[in-house]
């Protein structure tokens, strides 16, 4: 079950101004598996995810210490090209944010900024990733309509296709189904199960049942601390920590 670690978080602390959000987190995220980050709202799940993508430095007053190694290189080493790091990861946010352009252009956006020029190659790429994200059949006749015309569920799958099109190794998903209807949520979950053979997936969720359905590995966080982590079976069936037990049983939420 245990495979190589893909992302190694070491002694990571983050604070917003004087408010601490993460306190000395260390954990190895296994490669090509689904890792679920669970915990009550405000415990720092999103912060952890954004730290991996170096999106935190865009907000003011954030201070960060520790390291995150991806493929054995610290993404916080000075001199690393932040766009290269972000390109390795596809981000799926809570609410889909289609770019203000057509469906086709949304998927083509990433490959284009990374230098893809040929028209037929681009068309093939777009088709490929829309197929993977299960959207192709629904949109193939309206590729040049604005992406905002899609339903929220379709938009989220478009964002998935858009993220996959830059050929990342890792998919970061922050409560990706929380804005979706049950049917669309199911589709996204199915996609994830499908994709985990090829990608390392880290999904933040506050839905315990979703974590149970998807996760191979689980991180339980509470108030900025990583309380417990381990293989899903262990966390759900035999949690060691009192807090984890209570959360799993739904006493704290």
């Amino acid at each position, binding site marked *: 079950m245990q495979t190589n670690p893909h992302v190694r978080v070491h002694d990571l602390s983050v604070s917003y101004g004087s408010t601490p959000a993460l306190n000395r987190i260390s954990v190895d995220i296994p490669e090509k598996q689904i890792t679920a980050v669970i915990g009550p709202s405000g415990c720092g799940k999103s912060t952890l995810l954004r730290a991996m*993508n170096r*999106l935190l430095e*865009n907000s*003011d007053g954030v201070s960060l210490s520790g390291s995150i190694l991806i493929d054995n290189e610290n993404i916080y080493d000075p001199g690393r090209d932040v*766009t*290269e790091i*972000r*390109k390795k*990861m*596809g*981000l799926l*946010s809570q*609410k889909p*944010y289609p*770019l*203000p*352009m057509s469906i086709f252009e949304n998927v083509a*956006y*990433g490959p284009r*900024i*990374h230098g893809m020029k040929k028209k037929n190659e681009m068309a093939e790429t777009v088709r490929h990733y829309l197929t993977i994200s299960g959207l192709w059949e629904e949109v193939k006749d309206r590729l040049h309509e604005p992406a905002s015309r899609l339903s929220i569920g379709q938009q989220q799958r478009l*964002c998935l296709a*858009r*993220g996959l099109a*830059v050929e990342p190794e890792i998919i970061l998903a922050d409560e990706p189904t929380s804005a979706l209807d049950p049917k669309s949520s199911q589709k996204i979950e199915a996609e994830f199960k499908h994709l985990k053979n090829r990608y390392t997936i880290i999904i933040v969720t506050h839905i315990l049942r979703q974590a149970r359905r998807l996760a191979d590995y689980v991180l339980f966080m509470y108030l900025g601390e990583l309380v417990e982590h381990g293989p899903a079976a262990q966390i759900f069936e035999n949690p060691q920590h009192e807090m984890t037990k209570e959360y799993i049983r739904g006493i704290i939420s």
Partner: protein
Amino acid sequence: MTAKRTLKDLIAGKAMFLITAGCGVLVLVMALGLLIRAWPIMQIKPLHELLFSVSWSPMKGDFGMLPFIMGTLWVTGIAIVIAVPISLLTSIYLSEFALSRIRELSRPFIDLLAGIPSVIYGIWGVIVIVPLVKGRLAPLFGVSSTGYSVLAAGIVLSIMIFPVIIHITMEVFQAVPAGLREASLSLGATQWQTVKHVVLRRSLPGIIAANVLGFSRAFGETMAVLMVAGNITKIPGSVFDPGYPLPALIANNYGEMMSIPLYDSALMMSALVLFVVVIFFNVISRYILHRIRLRIS
């Protein structure tokens, strides 16, 4: 208690509605007033002659407004050409690249610029810009100019409308959700690529509205322009020529030589033109900006 509160609420609501409606009515009353006063000349002369004839000599009964309309268009056009790129770049820098401390620090200064009386801009134009045009810019192109020109007026105007355009453009940028910027960044786009392909594209209607608002402010601005434009009744042939914009015409002449038949009516007609153009562009741009604000909330 509750009944009293409800009553207060009702009264406050009604009062505010009446005030708002009153403002709307005021605009209509002003338009109507101008129309009534302009009516005599509009009955005698065809509209196209009033608007498109170059001959303006009230003593002879010629009231062609084209020189003034062209004067206004030249001055406004120059102001817009200067103001649009500079204010856009400033807004992009302040909103997307500057540290938030610099952004917050610069905001009150920008708003302060908007509050300076236009006569001060006019004096500053006479002292600095007019000599600059006369001594440096015109010789650069081998032209001689008194400095009192549509270029000088355009430069002064552009500086006057910067704050309006920058303020609104920044507001429009702030309305772009952070998640949208992050979506682009997380694909490995640079900040500049994100601004260019996502923020600007999303903000385009708002940017246009901000500039149209600046344009309508420039179109109607009177005092500063009057002081530096030269005010000679002739269509400008180049940016170094003087011009005579519509607002300056009205401000300089209204109340004088009113014994000349139809003169009063002709000035009212030009005021009406000014009024309609400014209101039209104002309403359009404010409507667009209103829609953008709705989208945020």
